């Protein structure tokens, strides 16, 4: 088994320091939906949901973990670090892009995986972060998610993955795309062994991630107004040469079309997950 790291309270010291260094600029955030200027601390207390209009900001993975886990998050796979399989370079080299995103986002890659309890239920938890390379799936994300599912299968734990992704990562080419095959195989094994798999689709969940584990779950939950789909909105608009209605590809649209199970406000998400997890404990610890 790989080396484990503990993240207490779902946040790292390094990240807190960085936020302090940013100073005043980090104190306020403007809601992109209603324009309200929000005090960062109030916003955080409200789980990054606009206190005025309910807009769900894209969440940092550590904040997400803190909002869902009871306390401790034991990360696995953090020693799976990026490589540069194609030797990619355009305006910047790929390693330079990764370095910049690590710095900016405070996360080591587009997904963090580990174990935690949610309302007392031990679960395997994966959380994607759109701030790192648009949450794209590359070799690291594929490997971490596979490790998570394999370890969850060994421990017979339910698995919950929060998706936030623009799809497969271009700079890793086919090496990125093939990760969808790898995670698919791991999901299939995990589920066939009788384990419960749940995904929470957050804004945005598109492309290869959407077309693989995000939609392979037993139960699919989405956050309000999250954009979810296979093709990006721009691509579709270019193809059909007309503007799409605002509602198109939102969580609510998918619910109506029968593609997902429920749309849940972030502020009641943890309670919802706990309720659902209660159905998986029939064999043990019955009250």
């Amino acid at each position, binding site marked *: 088994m790989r080396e484990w790291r503990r993240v207490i309270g779902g946040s790292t010291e390094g990240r807190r320091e960085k936020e302090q260094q940013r100073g005043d600029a980090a104190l306020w955030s403007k809601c992109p939906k209603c324009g309200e200027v929000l005090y960062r601390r109030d916003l955080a207390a409200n789980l990054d949901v606009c206190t005025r209009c309910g807009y769900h900001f894209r969440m940092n993975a550590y904040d997400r973990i803190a909002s869902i886990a009871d306390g401790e998050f034991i990360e696995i796979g953090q020693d799976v*670090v990026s490589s540069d399989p194609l030797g990619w370079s*355009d305006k910047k080299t790929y390693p330079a892009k990764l370095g910049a995103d690590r710095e900016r986002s405070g996360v080591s890659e587009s997904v963090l995986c580990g174990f935690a309890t949610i309302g007392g239920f031990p679960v395997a938890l994966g959380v994607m972060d759109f701030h790192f390379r648009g949450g794209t799936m590359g070799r690291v994300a594929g490997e971490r998610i596979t490790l998570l599912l394999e370890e969850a299968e060994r421990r017979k734990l339910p698995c919950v993955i929060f998706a936030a992704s623009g799809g497969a990562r*271009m700079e890793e*080419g086919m090496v990125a795309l093939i990760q969808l*095959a790898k995670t698919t195989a791991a999901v299939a094994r995990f589920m066939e062994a009788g384990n419960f798999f749940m995904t929470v689709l957050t804004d945005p969940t598109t*492309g290869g991630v959407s077309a693989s584990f995000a939609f392979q779950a037993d139960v699919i939950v989405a956050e309000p107004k999250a954009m*979810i789909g296979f093709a990006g909105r721009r*691509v579709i608009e270019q193809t059909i040469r007309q503007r799409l209605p605002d509602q198109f590809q939102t969580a609510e649209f998918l619910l109506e079309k029968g*593609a997902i199970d429920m749309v849940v406000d972030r502020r009641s998400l943890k309670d919802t997950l706990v309720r659902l997890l209660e159905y998986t404990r029939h064999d043990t610890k019955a009250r």
Partner: protein
Amino acid sequence: MSNNIIVEREKGMAELERRIAELRAASAAQPLDMSTEVAALEKKYREILQELFGTLSPWEKVHMARHPARPTSLDYISRFDRFDELHGDRHYRDDPSIVGGFALLHSRPVIVIGQQRGRDTRENLRRNFGMPAPEGYRKASRLARLAARLGLPIVTFVDTKGADPGISSEEHAQSEAIASCLQAFATARVPVVATIVGEGGSGGALALAIADHVMMLEHSTYSVASPEGCAAILWSDAGKAEEAAARLKLTADDLRRFGIVDEILAEPLGGAHRNAADVVVRTLAAVDAAVARLSSLPVERLLEERYRKYRLLGEWQDERLKPIGKSH
């Protein structure tokens, strides 16, 4: 769409081909011996052919893979001993951009599934340029499950620029359709052999390409996104597609090196369409050999090896693929 650079090059060759044919005819009709001239022209022709098509850049291969005369899935499927097409996803409609059904390959019953682009404008419109809708992937999943239940090997032919990006495809949950198709192939308890015969574009191609043995024609391409799509995503400029093609590592040689492709099938100089009959026969022989080898494995071992193959992809020993920098 005839902005195909290979087609343009062939137009230049056509004049030379015509002159050789004329000279040959004249030489046969006249008492005058013109065989030296014919031989010289033919030599020149072969030299030009070699120069034009001997080594193809990734971008040239993208155009070769999209060549309108390149053999399509049905060109292969129609050369099986028998093919009985099955239709429909059992939910909504039949998607003509994926064809599939029962077939006999060298007398062996199989399920064959392929993405089918049109061979002319009319057919392209009917087959949505080979871009499958969710109904196509649901048909493929259904056929894969059928194959597994009957114990029939699955043979696929991949040729798509990608899954259909349209309104109704989104309304009918394209993501779910592809995700389920990936699962059906990952778990099918029968041998799966996939051949990328043209363009293998992103998740829409992968949906038919999770296989125990993946083959690729020499000039086919297989990539995370089309070069145009990649350039649009990264640089907001689809015009930089040639540059994207060079960077994406989408050729058969690249993918063989990554272990994503297991076997490369050679093409005649100038591309598969220059001797389609031969390419089809050799491809079917290679498919048959792979199916025969895989069929001899116990099913548990087959599934374990398929899992391990994908499990280990991305975890190479290659020096160039070593991790860079440490995460913190």
